[in-house]
């Protein structure tokens, strides 16, 4: 499914963010703290209604779709996940089926199948009966990703999906979302992971997209100096050949 972010304005935060992702592409959104990355995503998953511009799925503006219809197409991993009650992992993942279920209750055999496979894809099948609140940060993150997968979305929006994950699971989760074949928009802090797993990268600074393109086009020493205020060297990954960054360490102040 195509996602179009068209001149999205949020007062005081976004000043006309613009980019488009085509079906099946993985797009990374990077930028310094406070540049508007999460706000952009919140406009896409409808936690926030932009004061200007529009977000469109396959050409259809979100504002013209019901929240439920949107949820059938688009799943998100958000940053708000303080949970007050003690759900089990299986129950949390089952919530992903909500937009597809009609009326009363009854999970179908297919609902259960989808949930079980979502859990095993994030390497969390063994956690199914555990209490969600008893999990570590990384385990929770994987379960929440499983919930998003259980939604069987055509667009997956991920706000810092690798947060709290150890390096093994960071790589596994990004490889997993790449392999889904759905359109992915992900805010990533690790520029090297973004370079390795994203088809295109958008660099946000002060509420605007200041660079868009492949890792090669975007992650240049100039952009890094301008936007992130760091000096960096671009090297090739010895195996995959994607550009990777080595940062110059700042001097330790006495």
């Amino acid at each position, binding site marked *: 499914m195509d996602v179009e972010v068209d001149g999205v304005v949020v007062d005081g935060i976004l000043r006309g963010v613009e980019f488009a992702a085509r079906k099946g592409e993985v797009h990374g959104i990077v930028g310094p703290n406070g540049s508007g990355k999460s706000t952009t995503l*919140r406009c896409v*998953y*409808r*936690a926030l209604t932009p004061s200007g511009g529009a977000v469109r799925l396959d050409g259809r503006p979100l504002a013209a779709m*019901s*929240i*439920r*219809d*949107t*949820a*059938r197409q*688009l*799943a*998100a991993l*958000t*940053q*708000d*996940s*303080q*949970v*007050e*009650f*003690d*759900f*089990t992992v299986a*129950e*949390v993942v089952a*919530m*992903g089926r*909500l*937009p597809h*279920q009609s009326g*009363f*209750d009854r999970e179908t055999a297919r609902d259960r199948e989808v949930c079980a496979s979502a859990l095993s894809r994030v390497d969390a099948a063994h956690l199914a009966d555990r*209490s969600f*609140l*008893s999990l570590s940060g990384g385990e929770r993150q994987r379960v929440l990703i499983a919930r*998003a997968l259980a*939604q069987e979305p055509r667009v997956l*929006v991920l706000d810092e999906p690798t947060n709290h994950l150890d390096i093994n699971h960071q790589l596994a989760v990004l490889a997993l979302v790449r392999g889904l074949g759905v359109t992915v928009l992900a805010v990533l802090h690790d520029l090297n992971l973004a370079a390795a797993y994203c088809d295109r990268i958008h660099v946000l600074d002060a509420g605007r997209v200041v660079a868009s393109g492949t890792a090669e086009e975007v992650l240049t020493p100039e952009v890094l100096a301008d936007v992130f205020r760091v000096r960096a060297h671009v090297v090739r990954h010895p195996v995959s050949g994607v550009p990777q960054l080595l940062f110059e360490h700042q001097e330790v102040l006495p």
Partner: protein
Amino acid sequence: MTKRLCAGLTALLLLSVVCGVALGPVSVPFTDVVRFLKAAVVGDVIQAAEAGAYRIVWDIRLPRVLLAAVVGAGLSVVGVAIQAMVRNALADPYVLGISSGASVGATAVATMGLFASLGIYALSTAAFLSALIAMALVYLAARRGGLTPLRLVLTGTAMAYGFSAIAMLLVFQAPRGEAARAAMFWLLGSLGGVTWASLPAAAVTVVAGTVYLRTRAKQLNAMSMGDETATTLGVDVTRTRKTLFVVTAAMTGVLVAVSGAVGFVGLMLPHLVRLVVGADHRRVLTIAPLAGACFLIWVDVAARLLAAPEELPLGVITAALGVPCFVFLMRGRGYVFGGK
């Protein structure tokens, strides 16, 4: 497991009703209770000598026991819904200020004799009307900037202080000490003097409200995960919370009007039920009304018996029974609430 629990609790509820009718300052043998109830429902002959006992069973005890069941069920269900709606484990049906609002009307009647023309319904009517006013005020005050959980709780709590202050002022200004006592007794909850007439409105409200909330169980699950998450799961959070506010406030208003502000049930029963069946609202909202109904029937029995012929306020007993029970259960299992 939920099915078996459900069947067990239904059986317990029937048994509790019979016991609740049998027990009291004048106790009626169980066999007579069953016989009288059968006579009243399907028609049978009662000896003239038994007329007095029959009246106690049918006219005094049964409506009271049934209302206890209705109030217990209603408070438990409303407690569950409100805790999920404001995402706060410490919330109860009274957190939105509705009961304090009702207490203003009730104390005004008890101390100043307003609505005297309505006779014994004056208190309930005034309580319900002032609950409605409180509901409108809380809603209007919290609405600006979105009905977020925190705004609802803060507005409700702040308003509750205001309403309570007015109620207390009325109590202290009351010329007759007896009126103040009556007001206080009502505030702590009581089912004394209940007749059949009090039952239909409360029963219909609780049944309809419970059925509605039960159909929203999955939305409540999603909302427990946070507003943004609920939105991504297809729940229109703003609209759902508005509807939930109106439904729970209306239920609370009716319950408070018929029984006063019975404390602790709406806070504790939801947690007790979650301890047993987990957090999924589909199970919690099936079990909570049954458990709440049984619980309050026995609380009311205790209220009648412990200091007979005097009656104790229900709130005193719910707390006395509930607190140790709750602490015991919380220690026994690794029940987690409110994050870590």
